[in-house]
């Protein structure tokens, strides 16, 4: 209903949002958010989990009823003088974090916690991470990031046969990544390997929307170069308008399952793989969709503005309009999809 109707009007150009024309405002807002995110990454900064910092962690299933103090005593019984961090997570689990313990202590604390909470030892999860592992994980994640960027830039450049498109998509990607990380820092969730998964997957999803818009933009600009009936910026803007409904739809549909995991992961399970992946994805998908509309396409216009062909097109269109004043925006669908216009119904 509403969506389809809006889709029609946006498609034909009856209604049009001037995303490209108002790009200064978009840049300003997203630039501000980008800077704010950078600040957030410093203060308060990301909270790294024990996978990055090294340390030991225990989780007692269904131990919350007995309280958190029990855990402190149980740990100090084995390792006097430590100050374990004890939190209740999810539905009644107790999580205990300590400095890195040696293997013997690990076993003892596990047994001691099981005894204190009166659960079988097998209900106590223990994790111990050496200090060098964090560096290892970080290095791997950064390598993955760089490799991914390199491959995808190449693929995009080949697919769109335009470096400007690949460049704009990649800039938007950096933008998405930094903002997602900033929001992650703001929320204060721990950064775990699962978070890293989430962030690296954002890359894929963020590109998804950009590709959809760019595909249409290429179609429209190709038609514009041929028909000389609208400027490059107008053709790109029409592409955003024509795809905005599907951008919203794909984003909503992508986000619904993620939101389900986030909600259940956070409220029912507490800290853990599901929550960490889904928060990163939740934020990243929304930011990614917004950036493909507000940032990526306007960037594309700016990147190609000075090209000779684009300047010639814009000049030709301006000349034509001056010669035969035509109501701006009239019949923008003509040639928009490269299928309109000519061809009679026989």
């Amino acid at each position, binding site marked *: 209903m509403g969506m389809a109707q809006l*889709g029609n009007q946006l498609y034909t150009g009856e209604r049009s949002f001037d995303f490209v024309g108002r790009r200064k405002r978009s840049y300003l807002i997203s630039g501000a958010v980008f800077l704010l995110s950078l600040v957030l990454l410093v203060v308060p900064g990301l909270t790294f989990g024990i996978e990055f910092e090294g340390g030991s962690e225990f989780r007692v299933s269904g131990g919350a009823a007995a309280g958190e103090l029990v855990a402190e005593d149980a740990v100090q019984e084995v390792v006097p003088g430590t100050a374990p961090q004890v939190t209740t997570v999810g539905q009644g689990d107790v999580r205990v974090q300590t400095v890195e313990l040696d293997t013997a202590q690990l076993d003892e604390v*596990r047994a001691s916690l099981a005894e204190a909470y009166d659960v079988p030892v097998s209900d106590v999860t223990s994790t111990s991470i050496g200090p060098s592992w964090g560096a290892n994980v970080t290095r791997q994640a950064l390598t993955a990031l760089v490799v991914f960027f390199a491959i995808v830039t190449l693929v995009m450049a080949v697919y769109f046969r335009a470096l400007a498109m690949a460049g704009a998509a990649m800039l938007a990607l950096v933008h998405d990544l930094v903002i997602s990380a900033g929001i992650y820092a703001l929320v204060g969730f721990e950064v775990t390997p699962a978070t890293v998964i989430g962030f690296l997957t954002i890359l894929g999803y963020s590109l998804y929307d950009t590709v959809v818009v760019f595909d249409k933009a290429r179609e429209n600009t190709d038609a514009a170069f041929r028909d000389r009936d609208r400027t490059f910026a107008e053709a790109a803007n029409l592409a955003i308008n024509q795809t905005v409904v599907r951008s919203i739809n794909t984003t909503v549909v*992508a986000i619904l399952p993620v939101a389900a995991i986030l909600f259940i992961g956070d409220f029912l399970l507490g800290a853990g793989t599901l929550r960490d992946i889904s928060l990163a994805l939740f934020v990243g998908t929304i930011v990614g969709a917004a950036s493909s509309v507000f940032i990526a396409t306007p960037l594309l216009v700016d990147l190609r503005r000075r090209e000779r062909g684009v300047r010639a097109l814009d000049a030709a269109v301006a000349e034509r309009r001056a010669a035969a004043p035509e109501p701006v925006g009239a019949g923008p669908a003509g040639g928009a999809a490269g299928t309109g216009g000519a061809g009679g119904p026989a």
Partner: protein
Amino acid sequence: MSNDRPPQRARRGAPVRRPHHGRTLGVLLLVAALLFGAVGAGSIWSDARWAPGLALDLEGGTQVLLTPRPTAGGGEVTEDQLQQARNIIEQRVNGTGINESEVSIQGGENIVVSIPGEATRAQLDLISQSSQLSMRVVLVAAEGAPAPAGDPAAEDPAAGDPAAEPADPAAEPAEPTDPAAEPADPAAQPTDEAEGAAAPAALRRDTAPEPAAEPTGAPAPAAPEASPAPPTLADVATPRPTPGPGQPTDSPATPPADASDQAWLTEDVGRLFTELDCSDPANLAGGTGGAEDPALPLVTCSQDGSVKYVLGPAEIQGTQLTGSSARQAVNQQGQPTGGWAVDLQFNSEGGDAFEALTARISQLEPPRDQFAAVLDGLVVTAPSVSGTIPGGRAEITGNFTQESADALAQQLRFGALPLSFDVQSEEQLSATLGSEQLRNGIIAGLVGLALVVAYFLIQYRALGLVTVTALVVAALLNWGVILLLSWLQGFRLSLAGVAGLIIAIGTTADSFIIFFERVRDEIREGRVLASAVEAGWRRARRTILISNAVTFISAVVLYVLAVGNVRGFAYTLGITTVIDLVVVALFTHPVVALLARTRFFGGGHKWSGFDPEHLGSVVARSAWRHGQVRKTVAQLRAEEREKARAGAGGGGDPGGGSADDGTAGPDGPAASERGNA
């Protein structure tokens, strides 16, 4: 296919091809049948199951992440060595009697050991011991499985008479290591592993791990069977039920003249050898690599457990072996014999030691003419020597195939670099927490699915039902592929993998949206549904392909450079991306195309999701009824523009065209247009 429809008007001269949608659906059916047929056949004749294997975070268990590092000095661990390290650890793990454990390489430099259920501390310690290669001469060899025929110690004249042991260090034969200081103070035994160090017998190192204290011990495989409860920490303290490979605690009665001297066969050696049962997998766990004393004889098994040996002190260390490779064997004329051989290259020290060793043992009777390459406490190979081999190069021939020669060469290469294993992380995962996580993960998936379905029904009406069906088809295919990989590849579904599957609901549905919206675009352009579906598909296909390609690339990058549990996620992400493509191409597209021929969809029913009126197209429902195609929005607009130009810019409503009255004549091809309102 059916031609009873009103003829379609091809626009722009491109005839609309009529793809064989029924056939396409048939292909999908075939794919699904093959997939499930394979799993079904596997479940009957092999060990495939109808439920996927679960990873440790869902099933509970122990996971240890190790990084191999060269023991001494710098140097990188090569992929080859990593693979060998994995094999060694696998041998250790299997030897400890842990069932269904899995040892895999992750991220190109880590080894992940996954053990379902509880593992004892002793088992875990064994896994992470360092490994090392050495070469020792064979003193006694016997079949591994049955009890040995005779007590080797009894054959030793010296062993029988302890009193004959001369305590005089001067009687000590000259050895490469300097024995001068040793006799005075046994504790001062040099720790350097000089080659050929048949160290003085009196100098047994008390700190050297004794068989009883060795962690190889854990429970023999028989033990868990007897008591279904997993072994607890208390078990570690109990002595090993069966004696394993080990080194003697007593000293030879007579200081042995050289490494091949029978004097090494002391009473204790005899006892160890007699008791050693190489058919017991617990004794094939290895893991003594870093601990065994190179100066003492070693009683141990061959890797496959078929032979057991008493070996002399280590004479050549792995570090002295510079290379080993497999090549085709040649006879003396240089003609290939058709067999395979393994080449060994030593450095100068190693070459000298090897020359001395071969010169000595080639004179002896079998089995003492053999030398053994010992890796990780077990004998990898024990070739016999027929003559002195100078020059630091040797060749091992035998019944090698290319494969077995390669395998041996690799093992020897690996052993050349002594490795230790850093324990990066160790996790004991609770099964209770795992099942809780799995249950909640499934709930999350169902909630997510329900939300997506609801959104689709609102946005796309009846078309939403197609989506639901397509999602079910995708889910079934995913299930099938996971079962298949679970069976063939040992894939285990982890929590991150479950998250990947849930998230895939969204991405799969996204492809449908891109397709549907493209079709709607074409309808807006004035095509009738059947042709809009084809045109829309051709355009959507490219977009879907490239966006899925991007997702697939990220999955592959994540998988290859995986850290921790990232892998399970990357795996399911990759699978679902491919299946998404399969479903949209082989199911959604043909189904929508077939439905487009029905009255409900093709006629643009209000609830079909493709209602042209609703979508602002001029192709009114009556066109379907009367077999006429009207002018499209674009054509009308073009006409309008013409008019406007002619009429000096009088141009009407710039938007979706002029609002006309919407009634079409009964059968007149009137170019009436409906407004958008």
